[in-house]
């Protein structure tokens, strides 16, 4: 920069009177400051397509400055022109036009001024990076020409722009300007906005997930229980306006917790449209026909057709599926209301926000930042409004990010569409007539907060959006096209290709069917009806590139095992915007597929995608758009479909809505026609448009079967090929839970309770005979200093062995201070405070009182303790061990904590009955070693039978809750979890062995069985305090209840089980959920991630008789593993419905325990376990 420019403050801007706004308001397109920097303003935004870079190239080119000098500003309502929403691939084609002219106009002005200054004719001047030079080598820069002046030029329409032949920046590939920042973690996205004093908000959405029209919208909330979140630290506010509910907290994780925990009562769900059959739903949706063209005599032509053909094509609801859930920050309290947003349409959103908060638009500044790609319209607008409402409520800046589940459920969907084609062939193989009718539910999707708060009525609006590319590109003699405009069924917005993609699916499949019937090569057949020269050139170029061989008659492919291969063609000129609209880039596909006829799996192996984009501003950017469209639309064609239950969206994570993964990618060969002499065309969507038809045509070529409904899932293909529904796709009907008798103590069952009551009553007599128990006098607290450090340390180990803290510590409570509720079939028992607090703990307990409790189950005051406290085991402990344990407990810091009263039903609340119970079931003997066994075995037996009390959970119990001695360690139930058999009765495919038991107890994981979860995780965590030899002794003892280990046989079985159960396909909803949600951490051989990688084929829970543990872990995850090295499992309860979990569980059982019978009543079990609290 020349020194002369330093300190100058002038600028040159090219402006236009604002369409909206105050008198004299104007919009700036280009401004050049005296320091030579250039700002370019565009009302559109970069949705990840790289238009920021392309627009910079255009401005640099027309202004004759280097690309690096241009800064492109997009979407900030305070400074950019209002150019509407970023849609329809029109940024380069439409909104860049005034920008280009503005840059050209500035150049003309500056060069004219330079000519004056240098006293040379314009023709004698050259410009290089903003420096104008005469032939005499004198020069002057743009900055010097501007100096201190403020120059404002009114944009003129007829300004001459550069000839393409003169381009040096446009038309060359330029690296994206945004990537270095993105690749190194600089703040780029709206998600990265941090404003001083910013709080975090989350919203709670209504139950009518994804539906935004109907009288229930905005009127369904009954109550919000603020008390339910009172314990959340740093909670600032709970906000409720109509059906809008939000929470604000100081910290993000607490806002998340509050939103999940907030008790909200909604009115019963409204009856929503049944979407299990899209075709039926769309036919039933009221519509208004709108004729777009009627040429020739269609009815007569079809009536006279030699071969009439009537076809229906169905497109499902699909998602934009942005990888980053939408986010926004709003600051209501500042002088200007500011909203940082990832919106696609800043000015339109600003209008919505003004309406929402009843303030003038001029008081709101909307700052657009980058967001995750959206390919249409996601929840970016919704979350901006949410943030603004929450900020207004608390008077501080608030950042809101939607959850994945909310983004999935509430994003305006790419709508379903139904296309009917009536037509046929004449005897000569020509097209008789083409009568096309399309049904497209509308896609207005008002900003959600406007609806939820009742600011606007939830009346469904009808838009004319189904007509994109509704007229086929072929010159049919008799042609009629009708768009049936209809209101939305599900909240919807435009999604890449809008209605053009489904319409083209029908056009291009149908012409393929015509060609097949006429026995003409499908490309040749198309060319007979294609009159557009550029289209013909493109079709020929793509056919040549792909090595297309004419196929007038389908040849049955040579099968490779179950695999057949095929090849299909499709072409489209994407005609978009208001009808009749205009064309973006031309596109044609040749897709190669491989179809597995046995499993129904379709892979697209290769795509040749040709495109005529006119002038390509940034050819590499165009290539990326083509590739991106090919990949995304292949994904849409093969696997994407929104799922619904009772009309509401249920796909809330990537397992329920899979998208294509790296190994599934086709090879892509991009052919870009050189058309640099032609005007630039939109390239953001065109290459998607032929996708589904090309793939469908290829599947036909491979299999001889036409598929007219997306997506081409394995189930659909198998059904199409074999005419049957694969059993795997059907969820078993819910059936009542059946349990083995011995499981009953921890399952609430009326019959058992009645029986128990009767037995208890009978026991009263026995009990009465041995009463009464006396109280042992309280003591002032024992001085712990009388115990040696070694004794206390030993006691600590024993407390760990007994896992005292596991029951005697409440969630988030103080260690051993009690208060944990223990759910039993007899009612809720609260574990007591075993810290040495005199008033509320055991501080007043002498050792004799402690010992009596441990051995006989009697409280110091003489009351009976419930056998939920396993004194039946503790009685086995040696005196020395009980004394050490006492020493440890007494040496703890006392904690004052009252234990809540138990909530037990009659007669279980009568403690004296327990005397009878003890007489029946309790033998207060200390452990007696078995001289026939080894010392280590006896040590293990002592630990396990005594303080370890393993069989308290792992043995079945009788109707009165006593362990069944004859079924020792044969498996039981505790806290809603199955405690599996530890003996040879184990259901695990590989028997327990000493080494695996040791590994499990020591590390929390056995490779051959799984990881400790549920109530077992804290037990293993406690066992960490025990020395290795004690763990080894426990393993030796437990192993003795199993067959001797045969390691080579086990290893062989592992290999066989894991190889035999590897998941290769996704032929059911459950399988897809596994692939999307589980496989990342569980598929054998997958990439290493932090934590363990439990093999499901070997996992005990998959092979059990009951699905409870599997369901527990899916719903509640593993938040507190035995050791952190094991890693964590997320809880899926808020991301999956009961039936989704049931489908997943059914799949896991079939896949990983193929020899075992299906579980029954899974859905009901899921519903029951969902109500339990996570352990």
């Amino acid at each position, binding site marked *: 920069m020349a020194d002369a420019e330093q300190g100058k403050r002038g600028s040159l801007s090219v402006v236009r009177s604002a369409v909206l706004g105050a008198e004299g308001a104007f919009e700036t397109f280009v401004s050049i400051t005296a320091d030579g920097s250039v700002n370019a303003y565009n009302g559109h935004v970069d949705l*990840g397509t790289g238009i920021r870079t392309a627009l910079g190239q255009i401005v640099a080119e027309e202004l004759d400055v280097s690309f690096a000098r241009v800064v492109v500003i997009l979407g900030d309502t305070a400074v950019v022109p209002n150019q509407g929403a970023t849609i329809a691939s029109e940024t380069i084609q439409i909104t860049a036009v005034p920008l280009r002219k503005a840059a050209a106009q500035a150049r003309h002005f500056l060069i004219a001024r330079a000519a004056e200054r240098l006293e040379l004719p314009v023709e004698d001047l050259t410009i290089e990076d903003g420096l104008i030079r005469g032939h005499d080598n004198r020069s002057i820069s743009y900055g010097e020409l501007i100096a201190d002046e403020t120059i404002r030029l009114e944009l003129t329409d007829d300004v001459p722009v550069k000839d393409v032949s003169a381009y040096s920046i446009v038309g060359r590939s330029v690296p994206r300007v945004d990537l270095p920042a993105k690749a190194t*973690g600089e703040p780029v996205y709206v998600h990265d906005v941090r404003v001083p004093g910013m709080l975090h908000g989350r919203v709670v959405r209504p139950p009518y997930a994804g539906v935004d029209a109907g009288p229930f919208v905005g009127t369904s909330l009954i109550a919000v229980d603020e008390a339910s979140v009172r314990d959340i630290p740093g909670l600032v506010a709970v906000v409720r306006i109509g059906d809008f509910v939000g929470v604000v907290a100081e910290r993000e*994780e607490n806002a998340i917790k509050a939103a999940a925990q907030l008790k909200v009562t909604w009115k019963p769900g409204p009856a929503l449209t049944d979407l299990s059959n899209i075709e039926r739903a769309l036919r039933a949706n009221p519509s208004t026909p709108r004729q777009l063209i009627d040429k020739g005599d269609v009815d007569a032509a079809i009536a006279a057709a030699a071969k009439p053909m009537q076809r229906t094509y169905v497109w499902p609801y699909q998602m934009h599926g942005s990888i980053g859930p939408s986010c926004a920050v709003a600051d209501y309290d500042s002088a200007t209301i500011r909203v940082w947003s990832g919106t696609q349409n800043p000015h339109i959103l600003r209008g919505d926000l003004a309406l929402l908060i009843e303030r003038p638009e001029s008081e709101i500044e909307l700052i657009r930042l980058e967001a995750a790609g959206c390919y249409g319209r996601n929840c970016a607008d919704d979350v901006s409004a949410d943030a603004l409402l929450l900020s207004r409520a608390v008077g501080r800046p608030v950042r809101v990010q939607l959850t*994945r589940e909310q983004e999935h459920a509430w994003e305006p969907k790419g709508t379903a569409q139904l296309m009917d084609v009536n037509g046929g062939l004449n005897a000569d193989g020509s097209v008789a007539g083409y009568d096309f009718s399309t049904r497209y539910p509308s896609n207005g999707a008002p900003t959600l907060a406007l609806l939820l708060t009742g600011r606007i009525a939830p009346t469904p609006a009808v838009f004319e959006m189904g007509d994109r590319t509704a007229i086929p590109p072929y010159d049919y003699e008799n042609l009629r096209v009708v768009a049936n405009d209809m209101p939305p069924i599900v909240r919807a917005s435009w999604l890449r290709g809008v209605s053009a993609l489904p319409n083209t699916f029908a056009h291009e499949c149908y012409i393929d069917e015509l060609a097949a019937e006429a026995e003409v090569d499908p490309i040749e057949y198309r060319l007979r009806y294609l009159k557009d020269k550029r289209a013909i050139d493109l079709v020929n170029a793509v056919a040549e590139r792909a090595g297309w061989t004419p196929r007038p008659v389908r040849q049955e492919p040579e099968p490779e095992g179950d695999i057949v291969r095929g090849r299909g063609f499709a072409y489209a000129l994407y005609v978009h915007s208001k009808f009749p609209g205009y064309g973006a880039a031309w596109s044609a596909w040749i897709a190669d597929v491989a179809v597995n006829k046995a499993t129904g799996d379709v892979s697209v192996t290769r795509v040749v995608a040709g495109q005529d984009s006119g002038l390509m501003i940034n050819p590499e950017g165009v290539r990326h758009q083509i590739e991106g469209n090919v990949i995304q639309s292949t994904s849409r064609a093969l696997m994407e479909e929104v799922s619904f239950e009772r009309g509401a969206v249920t796909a809330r*994570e*990537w397992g329920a809505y899979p998208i294509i993964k790296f190994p599934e990618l086709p090879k892509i060969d991009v052919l870009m026609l050189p058309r640099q002499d032609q005007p630039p065309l939109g390239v953001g969507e065109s290459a998607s448009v032929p996708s589904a038809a090309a793939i469908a045509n290829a599947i036909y070529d491979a299999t001889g079967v036409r598929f007219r409904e997306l997506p081409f899932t394995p189930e659909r293909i198998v059904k199409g090929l074999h005419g049957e529904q694969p059993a795997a796709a059907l969820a078993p009907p819910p059936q009542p839970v059946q349990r083995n008798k011995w499981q009953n103590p921890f399952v609430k069952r009326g019959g058992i309770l009645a029986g128990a009551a009767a037995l208890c009553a009978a026991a009263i007599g026995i009990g009465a005979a041995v009463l009464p128990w006396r109280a042992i006098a309280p003591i002032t607290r024992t001085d712990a200093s009388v115990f040696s450090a070694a004794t206390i340390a030993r006691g600590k180990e024993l407390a760990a062995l007994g896992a005292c803290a596991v029951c005697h510590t409440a969630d988030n409570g103080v260690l051993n201070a009690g208060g944990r509720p223990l759910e039993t079939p007899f009612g809720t028992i609260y574990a007591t405070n075993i810290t040495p607090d005199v008033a509320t703990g055991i501080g007043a307990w002498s050792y004799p009182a402690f010992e009596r409790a441990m051995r006989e189950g009697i409280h110091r005051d003489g009351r009976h303790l419930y056998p939920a406290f396993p004194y039946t085991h503790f009685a086995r402990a040696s005196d020395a061990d009980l004394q050490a344990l006492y020493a440890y407990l007494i040496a703890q810091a006392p904690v004052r904590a009252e234990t809540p009263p138990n909530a037990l039903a009659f007669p279980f609340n009568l403690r004296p009955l327990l005397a009878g119970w003890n007489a029946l079931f309790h033998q207060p003997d200390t452990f007696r070693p078995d001289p026939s066994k080894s010392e280590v075995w006896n040590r293990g037996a002592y630990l396990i039978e005594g303080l370890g009390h393993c069989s308290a959970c792992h043995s079945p119990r009788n109707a009165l809750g006593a362990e069944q001695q004859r079924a020792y360690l044969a498996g039981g139930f505790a806290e809603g979890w199955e405690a599996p058999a530890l003996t040879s009765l184990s259901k695990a495919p590989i028997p327990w062995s000493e080494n695996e038991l040791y590994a499990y107890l020591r590390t929390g994981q056995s490779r051959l069985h799984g990881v400790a979860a549920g109530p077992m995780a804290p037990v293993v965590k406690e066992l960490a305090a025990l020395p290795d030899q004690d763990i080894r002794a426990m393993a030796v003892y437990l192993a003795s209840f199993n067959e001797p280990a045969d390691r080579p046989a086990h290893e062989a079985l592992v290999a066989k089980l894991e190889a035999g159960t590897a998941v290769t396909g996704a032929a059911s909803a459950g399988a897809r959920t596994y692939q999307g949600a589980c496989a990342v951490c569980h598929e054998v051989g997958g*990439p290493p991630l932090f934590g363990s990688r439990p093999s499901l084929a070997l996992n005990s829970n998959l092979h059990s008789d009951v699905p409870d543990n599997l369901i527990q872990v899916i719903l509640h995850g593993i938040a507190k593993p035995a050791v952190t090295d094991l890693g964590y499992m997320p809880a899926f309860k808020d991301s999956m419905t009961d039936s989704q979990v049931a489908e997943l569980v059914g799949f896991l059982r079939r896949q990983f325990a193929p020899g075992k019978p299906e579980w029954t009543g899974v859905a009901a079990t899921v519903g029951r376990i969902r109500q339990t609290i996570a352990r």
Partner: protein
Amino acid sequence: MRLTVNGRNHDVDAAPDTALLYVLRNDLQLNGPKYGCGLGECGACAVLIDGVAARSCVIPIEGCANRDIVTLEGLGTRECPDPVQDAFIREQAAQCGYCLNGMIITTKALLARNATPSEQEVLEALRYNLCRCGAHIEIIRAAMRAAGHTLEARD
């Protein structure tokens, strides 16, 4: 809680069950790891923990004590990028870029255990990292470039 992130110790005042992701983004003001799904499904939140790829949205900070955490920022900067970052920039391996963090971190973790992966190994390593824009082709090229493979020029 003390966390070691990008070679520096940070004392963090957050509940032990707080997901690492929120502490990295809010307390440490890092932008690399991003919230994508909260379930470990998509990979946008990836970081390295003791050199292994980890999904920070499902790992509470209590599981991160005495571990070495590295985020995208810890690999390199715009001026001095890590070779993997550099490869991604050179191959223009992003469209919106929201998944880019996970792609780079996962590639970094792959190369740490396998310095010369084949293309098939790259595909499998990235299987559980989702990209919605369809930048996969460039991402694969970037990973291959970072692994030292010579890439075919593109026409």
